[in-house]
């Protein structure tokens, strides 16, 4: 009888070890935690782009997506600083350029929104269907 339950007990103990491991990794967040946060922000942004009707909120969701990418760049930059890489700061440099492109995109996009609102009197993306046959 005991023999029968031993594998289950071993499994249970392993599970307990796993919980302790998870607690340990939560107390010491590492690269993977940054990547998970970045992934969640990215997916929230994607959900915003796909579901919202307000074109301005869609632009804000795009900013959220770009920011998630920045978070990944920064996390990897720090990771490479510690593992010793030739150019560990490349991630931070790239982030500067992402921010520049995001600013340019926001300026142009909002200019388009204003022009669109003057002509169509709407900011709902499902009503802006001039190109739809």
């Amino acid at each position, binding site marked *: 009888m005991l023999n029968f339950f031993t594998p289950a007990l071993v499994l249970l103990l392993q599970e307990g070890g796993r919980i302790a491991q998870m607690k340990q990794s939560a107390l010491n967040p590492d*690269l993977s935690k*940054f990547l998970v946060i970045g992934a969640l*922000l990215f997916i929230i942004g994607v959900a915003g782009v796909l579901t919202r009707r307000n074109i301005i909120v869609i632009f804000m969701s795009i900013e959220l997506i770009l*920011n998630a990418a920045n978070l990944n760049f920064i996390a990897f930059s720090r990771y490479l600083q510690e593992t010793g890489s030739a150019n560990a*700061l490349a991630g931070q*440099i790239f982030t500067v350029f992402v921010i520049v492109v995001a600013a340019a995109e*926001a300026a142009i996009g909002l200019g388009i929104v*204003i022009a669109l609102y003057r002509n169509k009197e709407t900011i709902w993306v499902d009503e802006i269907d001039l190109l739809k046959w």
Partner: protein
Amino acid sequence: MTLSGYEALFFWIFALAAIFAGLLTVMARNAVHSALFLISSLVSVAALFVLARAEFIAGVQILVYVGGVMVLFLFVIMLVNVGAEERGHEEIFNNQRQVAASLIFCLLLVGGVLYAVNKGYAGLQRLHPTTADTAAQQQSARESSYATSATAASKITKDAEGVGNSLYRYASLPFEIASVLLLVAIIGSVMLARTLRQEASADDLGPEVLKVEIVNDPELANLEPQSE
């Protein structure tokens, strides 16, 4: 890289704040509320940048995003009419089938990305095994190399200097191209956002468009600069 002690505590606080504020950005009914939640999400991510030792980028993030881009957003929200949304008789999401399909897609994306992160990070750990105490050692060695500030009250990192050095050493051409991009963006948005009258006074209106629009606004003809 591992964070420990207070760094870990602040990491979780700001990570949860960033995700919560991001969710509220997508779900808020009022666009102004969305913008304010996005600002708090961006500030939380800037705090995460500080925890990842990118103080310069954190500063740039707050100056450019929060100080520049989000103010632009708020001005555009002010210029376009969002009253119907605010009063609550307009649906803020697309139709239900579209929302359901995109949520399913996002859930699949969450699963896929988290699986990829776990898998990839396990490989990275095999490549560069780091334990908490070696990380702490590296941290203290790093902190002892920091210069003391003039008042001797704090230590100063040289990370911003390193960013500047490698920005001009490895990325000076993209840096110049970025300045051209920003110039093009400024000119483009000014051109896009002109009114009909401004276009007419700059003589940028096509004759057919002018003929149509002059019915609504007879003053357009007077605005046209006379060619001599």
